[in-house]
């Protein structure tokens, strides 16, 4: 903790402007490290802006049916063309951004909270508790993730909520494993031993000493998983196991456009471009963060477990 304490004394007065400057200054070296980091960050910021301010930006209500303008190719009025009911695909794609971001936030919140809690318990408790939790994660990890998610989503019945739940069920064991490993290595470190000598309770150690140190590696893993969560959700929706029409979820849009692909390519192409770019942005950012936050991880298998 000594390094962090020193940094704290160094801190500038907490005015909003100075905080912003500090953030900008700390982000700059990351962006300078590689142009790809900047590209990833730019895409992510754009997607987040679209997700938050989408309804203000979208030229039309995405659900607005217009039978006078069905299957229109891209034009000035309809940048991405229209679908078989005359709905504006550009507006639908923007509405889809919010769905994808929401879905990723929920999936990762659920799996990070649950996974981290079990990981800390497992690492601190040790013994039989650790053994039981680890064997349970083994069972979940024995399945290829996407297949298990598809089976769970299908069992629960096709809907976006069930897909989110299914993916959270698939994701949490990775976090439990990751966090447990961190806790095991951290709990023998001096600052934890010192806390224990000072008779700090397990809750105090977990929240005060372990959580903070685990945070960096957690952020990297989450940023790597966001892209995958979005991609997996869209894939399941495309297969009919996730979001159902008329939801403007990108995978569902592509599934609908598929039957018209020979006459109205724009219906399939543009939602796919949005999806591909979004996932690329998050993956570039996550990959860059991994290298930047912990250069020792460079190229190792520890992070970025994607299937």
């Amino acid at each position, binding site marked *: 903790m000594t390094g962090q304490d020193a940094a704290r004394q160094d801190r500038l007065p907490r005015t909003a402007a100075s905080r912003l400057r500090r953030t900008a200054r700390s982000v700059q070296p990351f962006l300078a490290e590689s142009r790809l980091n900047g590209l990833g960050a730019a895409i992510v910021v754009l997607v987040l802006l679209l997700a938050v301010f989408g309804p203000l930006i979208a030229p039309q209500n995405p659900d607005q049916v217009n039978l006078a303008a069905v299957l229109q190719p891209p034009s000035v009025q309809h940048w991405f063309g229209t679908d078989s009911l005359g709905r504006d695909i550009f507006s639908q794609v923007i509405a889809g951004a919010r769905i994808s971001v929401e879905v990723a936030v929920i999936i990762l919140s659920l799996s990070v909270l649950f996974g981290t809690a079990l990981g800390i318990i497992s690492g601190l408790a040790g013994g039989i508790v650790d053994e039981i939790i680890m064997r349970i994660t083994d069972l979940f990890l024995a399945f290829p993730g996407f*297949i298990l998610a598809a089976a769970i989503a*299908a069992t629960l019945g096709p809907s976006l909520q069930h897909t989110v739940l299914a993916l959270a069920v698939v994701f949490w064991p990775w976090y439990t494993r990751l966090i447990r490993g961190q806790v095991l290595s951290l709990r023998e470190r001096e600052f934890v031993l010192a806390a224990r000598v000072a008779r700090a309770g397990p809750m105090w150690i977990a929240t005060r000493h372990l959580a903070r140190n685990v945070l960096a590696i957690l952020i990297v893993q989450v940023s790597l998983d966001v892209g995958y969560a979005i991609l997996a959700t869209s894939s399941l929706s495309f*297969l009919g196991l996730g979001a159902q029409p008329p939801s403007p979820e990108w995978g569902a849009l592509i599934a609908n456009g598929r039957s018209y692909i020979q006459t109205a390519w724009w219906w399939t192409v543009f939602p796919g471009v949005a999806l*591909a770019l979004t996932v690329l942005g998050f993956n*570039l950012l996550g990959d860059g963060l991994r290298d930047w936050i912990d250069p020792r991880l460079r190229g190792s298998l520890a992070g970025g477990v*994607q299937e």
Partner: protein
Amino acid sequence: MGTVIARRLVFTVFVLWGVTLVTFLLSRVVPGNPARLMAGPQASPSAVAHISRFYGLTDPLYVQYGRYMRDLAQGNLGFSFLTRRNVRTDIATFLPATIELAGYALLLGFVLALITGTVAAYRRGKAADAAGRLSAIAGLSLPVFWLALLLQLLFHTELGWLPLGGRLSPGMSPPPHITGLLTVDSLLTGNFAIFVNAAEHLVLPVVVLAAGVYGLMVRIMRTSVIDALGEEYVRTAQAKGLSRWRVLRRHVLRNALLPAVTVLGLEFGLLAAGVFVVESVFQWPGIGNYAFQAIQANDYNATIGATLVIAVVYVVINLIVDIVYLYLDPRIRYT
């Protein structure tokens, strides 16, 4: 080392048992009544009740699980009411198509990743390195189903170069069954026309699947080539005056290929997901398409069977990877 492998084997048996339990439970909580699905929409309630009793669906869950495990031990995976055949027969029919597809995708992705990874390592920090990294992340980011649709649109609808889907054109009869891999069987029986046709059908799905394989492997290849380049034996080989190519082939790649083994488990997970989606888009008659159709039709025996086979292959591949790595890396062996 013997004890390490023994422990690993016990662990694998435990995981396989868990896999049967999870798949069984998943299949028994399906919302639709399987008996009603089996009987068909016109069946009377008494007929449905009869089928329920006949298949033991009214028994308690643990009795059903016991029966399921007994059948499994005899290699009996039950009856699929979608195909009206034994699930085991179905899987034996569809598995070779998937193996052929995934095998070529793994090969293509691996070769491309080897080239990109090596070039990126030699040109570390240069533009080629960044391009390699971008291409790898793109390979993992492109939605498989969307890429498949685009390639179909371009190479089938627009250019007319390649078929839309399936394993063979209608009217082509498959070669005599030897391995079940059409490209291999057609060559073994000297049927060149069928070979070409099967190869044409493979191109698009293989390319789509290979994108992810490539994306996952480039990073490992790059890192391990960089590591190998920093080793003493490489410097010695260079100092001896060996040609660049010879150093690369004999000293760098030979050592750099080892870490690639470790991602095979992950690659398989990725391929399983890819196969599931790709086979559906390309109407490829493999295990992924079978599983997908079964899931959609609530055909629980077929769903269980296909999921079980995929999970078992996954577990076994991970076991083999661990053991192979144990043999290859003495540092792990002696600790």
